[in-house]
């Protein structure tokens, strides 16, 4: 600890106790794996923090990196002894949702990155069992090296952790049942707040052979309690994996009109829920290419009707310039014959229902792919190939200033064309009322990875230079949460700064869900040591202080 600097202390812990706790942590994991210098601790800050350098920015007081489950158990016991709040992270890459920073200033980060064992990958029964520090890159490399015929569904950034991502309700890009990463998990090992080790479902049966194959075993299903919450530290998880297909095709559907979205979504839902297609990527070609400016004529129509968009003029512009209003990429898996038959069926469905609908096949491959095919693949994640290409979203383009990162506002809305168009309107109105340029247009598309629902996201820019930008952004975010809730839309995920606001609108029957979670929290974590405030759940000793 640098002597001249003021030490960040865990909340309500005195310096003497903290120094003693550090010594005990060091005994458990070794001095090398306790990070206490300011320069090391700062690396646990959220690079995309919405309150960078402000007093409330959650900077940890310490980071401890165990290697084994037994070490996690010991750490939890020490935390109880000194009533130190601890915050587990897996690979700590949750950018846009909090990254590696804890929920509160001073919480001790338990960095599980060193717990990176791939315990099993089975390509006959199609599952894997992993520790939290394993990344999608690690798992892919392992499967490829061992020539295994399975692929893992993954989010865009491949450096994340399957365990961490699923525990924060992350989503991916293959068939729906795999895209739901928490839903595709099977079996858990958890260190409870008192340090005891629990295995759920089949894992509760000593010697069970189906840890990652049957989700329920016998008795209550408790796994859900450990996601977006603070009831334990998950140290192992099983996941269902998808067998690699023999053949893969990417078809592109275009339709000319805005309202075509309504029948389009209905058909797409049918195709998706019948497992005929994988993840449909919705876009509008009216949006300019990455980093380019929007056509000035089109841009002028965004505000030409009393400051709001003129939808007729936008539609007319699209038709005149022969720009399809919507464009959907549709991946199809199977064998060559079945894929071809499905492509024909899809063509028929859309051309019968929508005038001017066109479908073109742009990728058509037998697997395994060659190196070149893998490299040129339009959507690598749809075939389980990890990458970081999504960061084009936040890098500098020709016509926008560099920004430091983004914070996701991610409400869940119905998978329905009409509702999406309504959602656009409500967001546009809200930006108008706030006196800001709308980040949503009448051709903003839904995010479709959320199986059986749409997510209508906004990526707010944050800054590490300008506190005003961040303050303004936090206000807009919090307004958006309320506006969305008024219409029946709620966020699926949020960074620490917004978790109280987001969980606060899930308040049916006098917030019974929250009260139920709090009762559980007080029972199984009476000292309130694990991730206070995570998911909006506060332990008794901090309730009322940080929670309204």
């Amino acid at each position, binding site marked *: 600890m640098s002597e001249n600097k003021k030490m960040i202390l865990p909340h309500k812990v005195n310096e003497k106790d903290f120094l003693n706790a550090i010594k005990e942590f060091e005994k458990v994991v070794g001095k090398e794996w306790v990070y206490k210098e300011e320069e090391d601790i700062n690396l646990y800050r959220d*690079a995309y923090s919405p309150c960078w350098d402000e007093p409330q920015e959650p900077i940890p007081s310490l980071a401890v990196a165990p290697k084994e489950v037994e070490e996690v158990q010991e750490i939890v016991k020490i935390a109880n002894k000194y009533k130190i709040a601890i915050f587990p992270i897996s690979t700590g890459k949750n950018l846009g949702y909090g990254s*590696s920073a804890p929920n509160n200033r001073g919480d001790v980060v338990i*960095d599980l*990155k060193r717990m990176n064992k791939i315990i099993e990958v089975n390509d006959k029964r199609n599952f894997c069992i992993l520790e939290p520090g394993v990344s999608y*890159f690690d798992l892919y490399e392992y499967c490829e090296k061992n020539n295994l015929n399975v692929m893992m569904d993954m989010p865009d950034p491949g450096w994340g952790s399957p365990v961490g991502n699923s525990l924060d309700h992350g989503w991916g890009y293959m068939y729906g049942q795999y895209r739901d990463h928490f839903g595709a998990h099977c079996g858990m090992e958890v260190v409870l707040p008192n340090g005891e080790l629990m295995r759920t479902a089949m894992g509760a049966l000593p010697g069970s052979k189906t840890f990652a194959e049957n989700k329920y075993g016998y008795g209550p299903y408790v796994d859900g309690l450990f996601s977006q919450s603070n009831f334990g530290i998950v140290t192992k998880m099983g996941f269902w994996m998808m067998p690699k297909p023999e053949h893969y095709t990417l078809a592109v559907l275009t339709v000319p009109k805005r309202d075509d979205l309504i029948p389009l979504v209905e058909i797409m839902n049918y195709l998706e829920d019948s497992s005929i297609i994988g993840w449909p990527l919705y876009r509008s070609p009216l949006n300019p290419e*990455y980093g380019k400016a929007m056509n000035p004529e089109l841009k002028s129509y965004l505000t030409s009707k009393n400051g709001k968009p003129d939808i007729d003029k936008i539609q007319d512009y699209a038709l005149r310039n022969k720009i399809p209003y919507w464009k959907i990429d549709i991946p199809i898996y199977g064998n060559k014959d079945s894929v071809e038959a499905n492509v024909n069926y899809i063509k028929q469905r859309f051309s019968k229902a929508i005038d001017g609908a066109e479908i073109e096949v742009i990728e058509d491959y037998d697997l395994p792919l060659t190196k070149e095919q893998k490299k040129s693949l339009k959507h690598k994640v749809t075939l389980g190939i990890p990458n970081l*290409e999504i*960061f084009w979203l936040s890098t*500098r383009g020709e016509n926008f200033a*560099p920004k430091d990162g983004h914070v996701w506002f991610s409400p869940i809305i119905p998978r329905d064309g009409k509702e999406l168009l309504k959602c656009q309107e409500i967001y546009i109105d809200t930006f108008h009322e706030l006196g800001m340029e709308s980040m949503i247009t009448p051709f903003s598309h839904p995010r479709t990875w959320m199986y059986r629902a749409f997510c209508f996201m906004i990526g707010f820019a944050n800054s590490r230079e300008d506190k005003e930008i961040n303050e303004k952004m936090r206000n807009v975010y919090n307004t958006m949460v309320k506006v969305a809730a008024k219409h029946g839309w709620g966020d699926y995920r949020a960074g620490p700064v917004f978790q109280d606001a987001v969980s606060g609108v899930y308040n049916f029957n006098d917030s019974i869900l929250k009260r139920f979670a709090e009762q559980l929290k007080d029972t199984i974590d009476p000292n309130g040591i694990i991730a206070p405030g995570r998911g909006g759940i506060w332990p008794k000793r901090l309730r009322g202080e940080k929670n309204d």
Partner: protein
Amino acid sequence: MIKKTLLLIFFTGLLFANDTNKFNEGKQVFDKWCIHCHGVGMPATDALSIVYKDTEISPVLEERKNLDKSFIEYVVRNGRFSMPFFRKIEINNKQLESLAFYLSTKNR
């Protein structure tokens, strides 16, 4: 004299061996942590091609001639725009030194 020359050759050899190891370790770090954004056609490279437009400077880090060692170390630990900083558990100080050595000496 002969003894001294032999000793010199011996130590120079060791130095080269050390440098080779360092260089190789640096490349491994680059391939694990950097190439996914800084490879050819990747987002950071695209962004840098706008930054270095109309200059001789390559947007591809592995093609750069005059990359400064301390600049690399600074960016990895402090981030830059949307590039986040990296924790020591991801890239430790020794690995960072090797990475900086690799990128700063590769094309010299």
